[in-house]
């Protein structure tokens, strides 16, 4: 579904250029959930941005659904194929557009008919009651807003959903709700996911394959099962895995 070859993203020019992504190759199959983990600044969001079309100055090749995409301007048909869900549900919805307007906009841009029914269906898909339809974002909670953001991404019926830390700005109790919603949606409609997170547990909950990223390169690509069985090889992967298991006081670890 997504093929990335030798992708490099650099900010700035010449010898002082900051190469954030350094020659990444990756392939994501149709219906797969591919996870990207790494600490802040490792380039995982930039990589996702390049696939989404947000980051515009990359080198290399990106092929989505068999079509090469250009770095600068993509036609509407290519944009529709993948949609993005952002980290911060407070910043990703226009504060002066009602939920209805937010969901109508993509349909208007793409000239899609039957908008009323599609908006109602999208709200139902993400489990929001119809009475929220004409509210403004400030009248919703963080979790509800993130559901709206997911509905906005789904309303164009993309085959790929790009998720940029979709739960890290939410309360812990809401995180599980959103993750389960994403899981259900994928099982129901066979979407392809690319999920970026710094939280190994979130990635392991959703993803089949997990790439661990450090300083702009993949240090290891592993499977969820291997991750759970602790069959990882790179020390950085091991460190992230340990971190996700939570804090264990030193006294609880047997000496030796």
């Amino acid at each position, binding site marked *: 579904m997504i093929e990335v070859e030798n992708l490099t993203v650099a900010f700035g020019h010449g010898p002082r250029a900051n190469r954030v992504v350094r020659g990444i190759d990756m392939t994501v199959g149709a219906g797969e959930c591919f996870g990207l983990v790494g600490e802040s600044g490792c380039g995982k969001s930039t990589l996702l941005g390049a696939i*989404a*079309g*947000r980051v515009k100055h990359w080198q290399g090749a990106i092929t989505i659904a068999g079509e090469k995409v250009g770095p600068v301007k993509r036609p*509407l048909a290519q*944009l*529709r194929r993948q*949609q*993005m869900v*952002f*980290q*911060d549900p407070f*910043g*990703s*919805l*226009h*504060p*002066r*557009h*009602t939920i*209805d*307007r937010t969901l109508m*906009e*993509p349909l208007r*841009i*793409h000239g899609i008919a039957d908008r009323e029914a599609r908006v109602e269906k999208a709200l139902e898909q993400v489990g929001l009651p119809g*009475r929220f*339809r*004409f*509210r*403004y974002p*400030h*009248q919703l909670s963080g979790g509800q807003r993130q559901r709206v*953001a997911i509905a*906005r991404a789904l309303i*164009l019926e993309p085959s790929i959903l790009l998720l940029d830390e979709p739960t890290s700005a939410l309360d812990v109790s809401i995180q599980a709700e959103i993750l389960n919603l994403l899981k259900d949606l994928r099982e129901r409609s066979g979407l392809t996911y690319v999920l970026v997170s710094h939280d190994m547990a979130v990635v392991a909950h959703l993803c089949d394959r997990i790439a661990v990223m450090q300083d702009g390169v993949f240090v290891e690509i592993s499977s969820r099962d291997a991750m759970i069985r602790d069959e990882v090889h790179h020390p950085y992967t091991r460190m992230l895995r340990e971190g996700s298991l939570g804090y264990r006081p030193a006294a609880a670890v047997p000496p030796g």
Partner: protein
Amino acid sequence: MSVPPKSEGLRAWLLNEDFSSPAQARAHQAYVTWLRFSANPLALGGLIVVVLLVLAAWFAPWIATHDPLEQDLARALLPLSSAHWFGTDELGRDVYSRLVYGARTTLYIAILVTVIVGPIGFVVGAAAGYVGGWVDTVLMRITDIFLAFPSLVLALAFSAALGPGIENAVIAIALTVWPPVARLVRAETLTFRKADFVVAAELQGAGVARIMFLYIVPLCAPSVVIRLTLNMASIILTAAGLGFLGLGAQPPAPEWGAMAAQGRQYLLDAWWLTAIPGMAILLVSLAFNLLGDGLRDILDPKNA
């Protein structure tokens, strides 16, 4: 159970957040905004004065007691009385009636300038802020050039070049008022340009014009409305200043600044000729300032 009175039903409908239509959502927003606005007595006072001004201008023929242009030299320079509430001027014209008709001129200038300046400021500022690059550089340098002129001097030069008159005064004032508005819109646009909701719209394929007018303009609108309301006062003062210098409205048309100017020759004998239009200018400018401050308190997203 008794049926609630009709007004209670309307209030509940307005305050209910489970909207059933976009119209109700908008009505709710407007009603909540009004509730917050009306809690501010100074702003409410400003609004009342502005509404009275609009009513006076609209119904001038019914409110005025005399014809504002009718001269009667036998009754020149009469002090305040029940026949002439604010006295008469040197040509025997009723000051009160001229004041009422003068409200039309004042409002005409203030509204026309605002209507010209708002869209120009929006387009220039939003284009500079959102598109960026050389568009930004060119537009902002042009803005800088206009900002470099003292406003009254530019308006003076413009009126002098085009000839005195209300229309030219409007153009002259508009030329000096749009640059700060464009700057304001640009600054606001810069804060939203990289926001996730703008990126989301871009990733869905929204064009430049769509993002500028449907995404950025609604967010800049509150601060521009506040700015323009506060500007009303300075527009009125500049118009009065031009009138005072003889470059605004031309005699015999009633205009507050020109009325004050004509009265200054008789300042010692007939104080009302200068003081009454001066008070009117003061009151209306103050009202617009208070209204603008009140609007800032309720509309500014930083206070929300």
